[in-house]
């Protein structure tokens, strides 16, 4: 935010950064070799539905807009108890998940819904259960950075595992350096 915007009390809506997400497939390989974590086959895109001209009225509108009508069974849309929409995508490969999430992002941006995007979440689970527990990689669309989220209970997260994931992935991914931004996403619908 520039000085003039600050002086006049204006805030600009932030355009999301989409491109850093393409580094994920390489990071997935590292996760598998170092921590024995593989994709859960699910990814989610979290955004806030708002009101106004560009509002998406119904879930069906969103699905139509995102052009996922053709593969309805692998894509679902839900609203969580905090009023955020979750587009959950099923695909067995990380590449497929990344491609679909990116195309959804790009479509949202095209329709000027970019500022509403919150984050994308990719699920990773132990290849040989029980392992050390599941980890979600959260991609902050505004920051263009990743961070790990490993919930172990309704209000508990495994910080140790998260920090280890960070140390292994910091060469592959743009990791969020400010740890106070590693916000939790309790009860998220992505496996």
């Amino acid at each position, binding site marked *: 935010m520039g000085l003039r915007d600050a002086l006049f009390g204006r805030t600009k809506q932030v355009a999301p950064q989409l491109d850093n997400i393409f580094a994920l497939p390489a990071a997935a390989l590292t996760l598998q070799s170092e921590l024995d974590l593989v994709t859960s086959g699910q990814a989610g895109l979290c955004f806030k539905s708002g009101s106004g001209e560009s509002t998406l009225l119904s879930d069906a509108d969103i699905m139509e807009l995102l052009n996922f009508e053709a593969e309805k069974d692998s894509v679902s849309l839900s609203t969580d108890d905090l009023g955020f929409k979750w587009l959950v995508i099923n695909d067995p490969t990380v590449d497929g998940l990344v491609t679909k999430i990116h195309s959804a992002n790009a479509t949202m941006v095209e329709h000027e819904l970019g500022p509403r995007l919150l984050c994308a979440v990719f699920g990773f689970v132990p290849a040989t259960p029980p392992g050390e527990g599941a980890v979600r990689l959260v991609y902050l669309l505004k920051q263009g950075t990743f961070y790990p989220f490993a919930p172990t209970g309704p*209000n508990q997260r495994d910080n140790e595992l998260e920090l280890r994931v960070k140390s292994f992935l910091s060469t592959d991914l743009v990791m969020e350096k400010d740890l106070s931004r590693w916000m939790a996403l309790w009860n998220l619908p992505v496996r």
Partner: protein
Amino acid sequence: MAKTKIETDHGLNVRMFLTGLALVVLYLIITTLLIYLGVGYGLVIVIVAALIFSQYYFSDKIAMFSMHAHEVTPAEEPRLHEIVDRLCLLANMPKPRVGVAEMDIPNAFATGRSPSHAVICATRGIMARLSDEELEAVLAHELSHVAHRDVAIMTIASGVGMLAGLVSRMAMWGAMLGGGGGGGGRGGNNNDNAALVELATWVVSILIYVVAYLLTMALSRYRELAADRSGAILIGKPSVLASALVHITGDMGRIPRTDLRKAETMNAFFFVPALAGGTAASLFSTHPSLEKRLDALTKLERELNG
């Protein structure tokens, strides 16, 4: 302090004594300066002393207020009360009031003018992050602060800083008044000299303020190490306190449990994020670094076992 069953660390005592001595020397310098500056300051000193005293006397209320903490009954927080009960029995000290601060930052504090007027407080964040055993270790550390009367000691120490700041302001006024009032019949030379002297006093007292501040911080760090030590000895397991410290003061303590969706405005979800602040240098820190505290606890663990 003599009542509690806590052994002493002589090296730490010597360092604390030296820091304290340096503070006393500073007091002397300041008093000399005040006398040199002349009349009118007696009253100001009384006021400052009253301020410092009330800061000390109401320390529990001030701290509770600024941390958004409230007192809790045993029925509301049975776990917290039980831990404090047991620790107070162990250390043979009166049970302080128990409070909880509704914030996610993992922290705990104890304050109050005397052990019988103390309050011990934990945040929601620390209670959720630590196991019962680790929470007990942290509370033992805080109870040690109470037993060591750290509020009184740190109030006295930081009082020096306030006095020094006051002196520097006095000197500044003195310089301005001296420069304006003496300009009537005398030559410019005399005026310049007076102004120079005042300026020198001003610079010196600012230096004193800086040094006093650094010494207060150093003293605070030693008191923290002393509380770590006493707390660890009280529960008998330095390693548990060490693991609690790792969980709350290192990287892990900074990872929030706040939900991203709930923190949208704070987290600058829709808007440009604010710049993240850097970390303060260790010289200005009130707490020793995590490595130093862990080293001290490891050493203590060896002493206890060996």
